[in-house]
């Protein structure tokens, strides 16, 4: 791969497969992500979206195939590469018995975030929780916890964001906060992959859409002029009536 190509493709997934015993969760998945690009991966339950995101986040090793971050092999390139990855899922990854500040300071230290106190103030303001900064997380509502999880995911300013069903369980306020952040992501330099089964949310900010069915990428296209109705038709055709839930 030439330097030019390496610069262009921030994340490259090559022939990625993952099996759990006889169950093939992913089959020869190939994907590429440019700098600043927002890719939405759609698919029904059990399609392999979460497995794919977990492999990209280095939480799970692939059975075969490679994931490259720039020119580095993500699973062989050392722990420092994890600093480039931000991860947000429906689980908050937060400690209930610590305060919001203690949670962010803990993760900030683990990621070697410079000027940590200042950065914590920035991200906590971004999610509108500055008045609850020193309260234990267990006293937060589900929506507030997810807003704090958003602050945690962005604390170390990762270059690639991985979002796995990030809207699950959010209250309206948290949905708006997350939508605002995703809009910023879509217009910025960060590259983003979001896995969701929600077509409307998935289409909102993305530049490209892929549909994953039974571990295989069955459809991939630039968003272009793709509207929600067209996407629904494509999705239904791709996943089949059996898996389609309107």
């Amino acid at each position, binding site marked *: 791969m030439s330097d030019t190509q390496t610069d262009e493709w921030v994340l490259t997934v090559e022939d990625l497969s993952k099996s759990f015993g006889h169950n093939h969760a992913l089959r020869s998945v190939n994907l590429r992500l440019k700098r600043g690009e927002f890719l939405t991966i759609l698919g029904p339950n059990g399609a392999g979206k979460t497995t794919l995101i977990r492999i990209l986040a280095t939480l799970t*090793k692939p059975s075969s195939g490679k994931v490259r971050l720039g020119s580095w092999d993500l699973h062989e390139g050392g722990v420092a*590469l994890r*600093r480039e*990855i931000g991860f947000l899922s429906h689980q908050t*990854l937060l400690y209930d*018995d610590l305060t919001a500040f*203690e949670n962010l300071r803990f*993760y900030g*230290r*683990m990621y070697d975030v410079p000027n940590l106190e200042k950065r914590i103030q920035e991200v906590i303001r971004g999610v509108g929780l500055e008045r609850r900064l020193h309260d234990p997380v267990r006293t937060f509502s589900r929506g507030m916890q997810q807003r704090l999880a958003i602050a945690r995911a962005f604390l170390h300013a990762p270059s690639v964001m991985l979002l796995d069903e990030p809207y699950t369980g959010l209250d309206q306020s948290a949905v708006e906060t997350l939508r605002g952040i995703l809009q910023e992501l879509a217009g910025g330099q960060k590259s983003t992959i979001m896995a969701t089964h929600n077509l409307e949310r998935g289409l909102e900010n993305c530049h490209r859409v892929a549909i994953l069915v039974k571990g295989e990428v069955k459809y991939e296209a630039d968003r272009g002029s793709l509207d929600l109705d067209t996407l629904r038709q494509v999705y239904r055709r791709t996943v089949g009536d059996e898996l389609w839930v309107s």
Partner: protein
Amino acid sequence: MGFLAKVGTILWKDLRAELRTKDILTSMFIFAFLVIVIFNFAFELQRLEPEAIAPGVLWVAFTFAGVLGLNRSFVLEKDKGCLEGLMLCPVDRGAIYLAKMMGNIIFILFMEAIALPLFLALSNLPLPWELLPILLLGTMGFAGVGTLFAAISVNTRTREVMLPLLLFPVIVPVIIAAVKATGVVFAGGSLREAGGWLNLLISFDAIFLVVAFITFEYVLEE
């Protein structure tokens, strides 16, 4: 921030959370207290030969209570996906093992420090200071292997049952060596007299700490 600083950061987080809730310490201490009281009534420790029975009772109480603490330390990480949060951090996963193991050693030693005087008072035994290195070595071996198996069992549906089933067969040498060495010092012997058992404890600790440190990454990932 270096490797040891990251270990310290994870350890600080565990200690901070535990000092706030005291979940692990309370459950371990109450369990150890109950075991000691029940054995005290069952064996009438003060009337029979306490030196012969006491070491076994003491280590049964400590290891059974310790299992509760080991289980709890990873259940708390599993809540809200915090273990995944740790795995995402740019740090060698051995650092997670070392921090969790050190946290478990501190919690178990703290439980022992409260339960031991109670046990000695009930069984009318003096505190031989030679017991302290035996407690430390036994606890290190127990927590070293226990932390690894707690990380395995936390991903199973029957984790509370699975941990002792996995752990006890492996730590049999630690328990036997600790009980025998404790028996020697309760009978008025010196650490030199218990030297063979202490050497077994030291060897077990050294070997299994290294093995657990190396294998922990694979345990977490699969």
